[in-house]
């Protein structure tokens, strides 16, 4: 092979490459410091409860994004797995007489496994459809599970709901264990999302988003690929459902299987950036504190629904791609407009900041000798 060697495969030699790990370390340090710093900075508020819900929903959004963000299949029935995880923990704690404070937290992986097992048949059935039909089928499965929770009284006690053990932590010591557990699951979900994004498997999911039939024709096993992503995201959401139930100490059919759960998750991901790694977290960081703030004010309760509606409109009208992709695009445009300086070599030769390159016939772009492509 006589052609040019691949010097820097796909990774732009950019200052961003250096900034990213530093930013990650800083963010992680801030996240770890929240339980000790927040009560000092905002004394006498429910700041820690907001923090717990924020990491919990950020993790849910990241997990949802592994399936819906990468494959483009918008699932609006993930409350099935959230509620299943919640009920699974309540039932296990009751059945096995779990009383220790950390016991229920140790059962969370099992909640995830149960949700994942439920996700397999649900996925096999719903993934036979595509596009809008898929969305409708997932909503339908959500209602089926909510009805089951109401009616299978011997398991769920119907609308009376189930109670979970109350931990002995009190006062300021109550929230941190939930916060750190949520943060851990968030890190695992983001780690899984990152791994999927850079694997050949994840590239197959992105190909499914663009043209599923073509991906299939190029050897991508689309059925198992979609089902694995669906199950993986259900696993994390199931764990988080368990954590949520333990935190609020009870679960009811309409709180575990909450119709607004998926609306909120989808809104967070669309707001931050569908299919991006950090978008779901950013969306949750904006939406959950706002929602909690509005809902905590007694005169404004359930006004957060109007907040959701307004935000949906903003996203659709102003940020159809979400915050992160829009910012990234602006950044590239801004760099392209900047006059060439010493930093110019940093720009990759393949990047066309201004607009789409429709230059010349490909034959002229790189003359290929008769033995050019020898393998």
């Amino acid at each position, binding site marked *: 092979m006589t*052609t040019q060697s691949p010097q820097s495969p796909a990774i732009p030699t950019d200052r961003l490459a250096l900034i990213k790990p530093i930013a990650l370390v800083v963010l992680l340090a801030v996240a770890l410091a929240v339980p000790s710093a927040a009560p000092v900075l905002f004394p006498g508020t429910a700041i820690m409860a907001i923090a717990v819900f924020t990491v919990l929903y950020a993790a849910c959004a990241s997990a949802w994004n592994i399936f819906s963000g990468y494959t483009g299949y918008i699932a609006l029935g993930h409350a099935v797995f959230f509620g299943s995880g919640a009920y699974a923990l309540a039932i296990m704690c009751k059945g096995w007489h779990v009383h220790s404070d950390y016991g229920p937290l140790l059962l969370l992986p099992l909640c995830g496994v149960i949700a994942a097992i439920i996700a397999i048949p649900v996925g096999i059935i719903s993934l036979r459809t595509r596009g809008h039909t898929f969305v409708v089928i997932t909503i339908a499965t959500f209602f089926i599970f909510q009805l089951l929770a109401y009616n299978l009284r011997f398991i769920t006690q119907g609308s009376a709901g189930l109670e979970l053990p109350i931990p002995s932590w009190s006062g300021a010591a109550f929230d941190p264990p939930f916060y750190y557990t949520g943060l851990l699951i968030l890190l695992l979900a983001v780690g899984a999302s990152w791994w999927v994004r850079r694997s050949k498997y994840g590239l*197959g999911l992105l190909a499914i988003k663009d043209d599923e039939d073509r991906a299939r024709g*190029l050897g991508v096993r689309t059925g198992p690929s979609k089902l694995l992503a669906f199950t993986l995201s259900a696993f994390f959401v199931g764990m988080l459902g368990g954590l949520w139930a333990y935190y609020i100490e009870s679960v009811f059919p309409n709180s575990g299987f909450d119709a607004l759960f998926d609306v909120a998750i989808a809104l967070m991901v669309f707001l931050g950036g569908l299919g991006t790694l950090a978008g779901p977290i950013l969306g949750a960081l904006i939406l959950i504190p706002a929602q909690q703030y509005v809902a905590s004010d007694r005169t404004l309760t359930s006004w957060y629904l109007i907040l959701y509606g307004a935000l949906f409109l903003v996203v659709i009208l102003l940020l159809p791609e979400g915050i992160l992709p829009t910012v990234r695009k602006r950044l590239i445009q801004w760099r392209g407009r900047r006059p060439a300086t010493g930093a110019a070599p940093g720009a990759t030769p393949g990047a*066309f900041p201004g607009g789409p390159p429709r230059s010349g016939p490909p034959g002229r*772009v790189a003359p290929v000798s008769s033995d050019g*492509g020898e393998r």
Partner: protein
Amino acid sequence: MSYLEVHTVSKAFGGIQALNACSLGIERGRITGLIGPNGSGKTTLFNVITGYERPDDGQVWFNGAAITNSAPDAVFGLGIGRTFQMSRIFSRLTVLENMHVPVPRRGGLGILRSWTSAREQRQALELLDFVGLIPLKDVPAENLSYGQKKLLEFACVLVAEPQVILLDEPAGGVNPTMINYLAGHIRQLNRRGITFLVVEHNMEFVMGLCDTVFVMHRGTTIAGGTPAEVRNNPAVLEAYLGD
């Protein structure tokens, strides 16, 4: 039996008989052309061979094994790649990412690893160089021109090193310089042992490139032979001119 054999395949869509007991055989290492008027069933035949459509009747054999009802990913895994009439690429992925989508035949659990491994990256860049798309490797594929999309789709199929490639109108809507460029590539790959089946309306292209040409009309093959034989076949003239 031929290397790739289509045996009395029929396929109907509603009341329309797209394929009607269609048979043809493709020999290993050849470039075979498939021509015929619009609606004669050429693309449907491609879809049946590559698993996108299930035939109502008949069989498809590849390398001595029946592949009649295999799924598209399985057919691709056996070594049959194809392109589409309206080129189908992954528009939101970059050109280079497009090249990493095809799953190699000896894939296994390798798909769980990163796609930016050095070996795969080198192979993808070699193939992009082969079709002259290296300068555009980091561009979203939707920004390519029509001809560039065709080249990308073609290069994409080559990643998995297929033994047979089916091309659906590779020269359609492409300028003459590019057509020659493409024909050169097909010949070059053919010399390395890849078998081709090419659907094309551009007669000059087909007659100049192919060793064997089949003619389809109303869902079945009505003639087959060398380009010269086919050109002088009265049934072929009848199909194209009369009706």
